[in-house]
């Protein structure tokens, strides 16, 4: 087999260009460090009209945007979803894990929800509160300066609320609530549920002259052509390419970290997807950011004499403690919102208000909290609109179904009268929930693939039950009717399948004790002093928040640590 080797030795090789990898590339290259960024997907720039889906109408797709090719619809800016051709994964029998992979420059940050929350002081030390899981080896004070820098560099709107576990930052002003969000505010307040402006990395105001300001098309999931929202591609990688310190390798699938006989990393090997050839890159430091499970896979597949069960895996913990956010949701029909006057209510591509966790778990029968996200309004029609045009007739004792001109009126009557409440909660990380290499299966490039084993426990089921109780209370308090049946114990309280909320974290957990963790507090492998992990794999616990702001703050912190090591000439 022909292997093509690079002559040049890079200071740092970054694997993966999503939230973690983009931030590392930017921070390191800004400091003058020579970086190779290796990305398994194609080049992608949200401003490129060739690939743009923003501002397209449903009829511009032959299938009106239906989700045949892209799971979340034709216009969703993700190359890849729950399944990728020729790149399988599986779950241990009786368990299920869904793995979302997006292969493109910028990874999942091209279509993510932009909900950008800091973890709070409690989130880093939750074991101190309930004895479960593990504390992080760092505290909020360690990461705060990086959250601050991140806010200013990337931009996030929100408001100062002075809540202990929802730290404030440097916020841009939030957009005003939409009509259905005012209904939510009313219902939540009546139910004693805290409600406040959401915190999303969307520019409601100028932060620099390179990026445009949001023009309220409501579709950040399509990626913003004026860079009004944060994507790692538009805001981190593409700007760093201009600095001349970054070589970008696209369509390049890293399969292994290469080590010398002492077990130190000397670079990575990858397969070029266009010509199928193998390449080797040399680097003084390797920074992995392929996303939590993909990084675990690369490490476990990097076996050598010095690291017989995978690189950095002397603790045998790589892949273990995999956990995702819990999720449950309910639709609510609001009769008062029938026959709406129509105006442009697109707003930003996400919610304008939300509820952070507002209760004390000491007084509840489940250990960790959740936040509530809100959807609704009068969005652009998409495939599926009008499918059950008059289902809500049943609430008025009228017939449902039928045919004829009246269906037109039914669709108009009920358009914009539904809101969606979604709970997103913290799960307890468990050693028994993991991903591992499947000895019997390889992808189309010949690289062994992952097998998952993940099960929720009562901690999560009880939390989902509480979510549903809350949704019903809020629904009635805002004058609405909850839709469908309330899930019961029999249907596991409607909890999401693990992986489905797409906040998978924890596969190379961080800690001070090399027997109990995989990386140290600077996200460096305990076993190898020149390999770092800057995606969500090092998370000790995923709070009742979304993970990405913390991925990026940690990546920035780790990158600055690497820069200081270079300066001290430790490398």
């Amino acid at each position, binding site marked *: 087999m022909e292997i093509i080797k690079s002559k040049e030795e890079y200071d740092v090789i970054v694997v993966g260009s999503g939230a973690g990898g983009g931030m590392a590339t930017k921070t390191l290259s800004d400091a003058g460090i020579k970086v190779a960024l290796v990305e398994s997907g194609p*080049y992608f720039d949200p401003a*490129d009209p060739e*690939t*743009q*889906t923003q*501002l*397209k109408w*449903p*009829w*511009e*797709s032959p*299938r*009106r945007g239906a989700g*045949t090719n892209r799971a979340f619809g034709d*216009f969703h800016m993700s190359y890849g979803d729950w399944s990728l*051709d020729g790149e399988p994964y599986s779950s241990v029998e009786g368990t299920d894990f869904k793995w979302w992979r997006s292969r493109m420059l910028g990874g999942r940050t091209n279509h993510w929800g932009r909900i950008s929350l800091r973890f709070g002081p409690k989130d880093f030390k939750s074991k101190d509160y309930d004895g479960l899981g593990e504390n992080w080896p760092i505290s909020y004070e360690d990461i705060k300066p990086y959250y601050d820098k991140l806010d200013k560099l990337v931009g996030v709107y929100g*408001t*100062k609320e002075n809540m202990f576990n929802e730290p*404030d930052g*440097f*916020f*841009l*002003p939030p*957009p*005003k*609530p939409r*009509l259905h969000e*005012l209904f939510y505010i*009313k219902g939540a307040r009546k139910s004693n549920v805290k409600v406040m*402006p959401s915190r999303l990395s969307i520019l*409601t*105001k*100028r*932060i620099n002259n390179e990026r445009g*300001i949001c*023009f*309220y*098309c*409501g579709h950040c999931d399509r990626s913003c052509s004026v860079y009004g929202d944060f994507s790692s591609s538009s805001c981190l990688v593409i700007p760093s390419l201009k600095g001349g310190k970054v070589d970008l390798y696209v369509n390049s699938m890293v399969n292994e970290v290469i080590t010398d006989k002492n077990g130190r990393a000397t670079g990575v090997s990858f397969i070029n997807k266009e010509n199928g050839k193998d390449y080797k890159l040399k680097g003084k430091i390797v920074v992995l950011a392929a996303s939590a499970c993909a990084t675990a896979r690369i490490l476990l597949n990097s076996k050598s004499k010095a690291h017989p069960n995978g690189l950095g895996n002397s603790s045998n913990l790589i892949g273990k403690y995999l956990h995702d956010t819990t999720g449950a949701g309910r639709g609510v029909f609001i009769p008062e919102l029938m026959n709406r006057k*129509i*105006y*442009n*209510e*697109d*707003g930003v591509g996400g919610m304008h208000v939300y509820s952070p966790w507002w209760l004390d778990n000491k007084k509840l029968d489940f250990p960790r909290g959740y936040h509530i996200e809100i959807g609704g309004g*009068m969005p*652009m*029609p998409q495939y599926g*609109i009008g*499918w*059950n045009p008059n289902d809500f007739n049943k609430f008025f004792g009228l*017939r449902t*179904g*039928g*045919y*004829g*001109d009246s*269906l*037109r009126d039914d*669709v108009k009557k009920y358009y914009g009268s539904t809101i969606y409440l979604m709970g997103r909660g913290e799960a307890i990380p468990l050693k028994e929930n993991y991903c591992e290499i499947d000895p019997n299966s390889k992808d189309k490039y010949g690289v062994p693939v992952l097998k998952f084993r993940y099960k929720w426990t009562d901690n999560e089921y009880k939390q989902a039950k509480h979510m549903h109780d809350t949704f019903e209370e809020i629904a009635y308090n805002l004058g609405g009717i909850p839709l469908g049946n309330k899930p019961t114990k029999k249907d596991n309280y409607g909890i999401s399948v693990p992986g489905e909320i797409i906040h998978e974290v924890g596969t190379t957990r961080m800690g001070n004790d090399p027997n109990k963790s995989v990386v140290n507090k600077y996200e460096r492998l305990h076993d190898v002093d020149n390999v770092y992990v800057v995606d969500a794999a090092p998370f000790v616990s995923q709070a009742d928040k979304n993970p990405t702001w913390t991925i990026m703050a940690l990546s920035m912190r780790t990158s600055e640590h690497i820069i200081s090591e270079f300066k001290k000439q430790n490398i």
Partner: protein
Amino acid sequence: MKRRDSIKTMFLGSIGASLTLNSCITTEDKVMLDQVWKYNYGRTYEELKWDYKVLTSKFFSDSELKTIEKIANIILPPNEKGNIKDAGVVELFEIIAKDFSTPAHDEYGEKVLRRGLNVFDKICNERFGVNLIDCSDDQIKSVFDSIAFNDNKDEGLQEAIRLFAVYRGMVLTGYFTSEVGINDLGYKGNTPNVWDGVPDDVLKDYSVSYDEEWISRCVDQSKRNDLAEWDDDGNLLT
């Protein structure tokens, strides 16, 4: 980037090659070819290949398509706001039949959409001795009266009722995702604008309102272009 630039040419190249093998380019082929390029919605190479396959094969026969057209026009009769022809509803049936004809969609075209036609024809034959296409509008409506409503519990009609619901869903979705349908609905948006809250006249109609404390902290749209600056405590200064 280079690769993206090459995609279009690569793709046209491969079509060109297969067409030359076919030795003569029929006008039909040319129409199809134009069809792929009629849609310009940011596809990857693999997606383009799939679209080409979907757009250049034929699932329904012409007479089946005529039947669908007839059904669709009764489910959603034309008026001055729009009709199923301008909304491209029949074309959507043809496309979805092939697009969803994968195991993941349980052979939607074969098992659902064509099955629907067969079942509707069967009922028409039982009642009137002819296929649906040869029935009068009133005859068709009398059939729909028994299969279009969810409260009909007649055992023998349950499959027809389920299939009719799919037809109705397809017709309405096709209509309301088309240009005429979206205009008919009145949806406003998908265009650059500045969101500055719910219009006052709308707010007045409802039991909710903005509270001062909340919106005083929201974006002042007249200052959206001023560069953000904060004091050390995170208070916005601009």
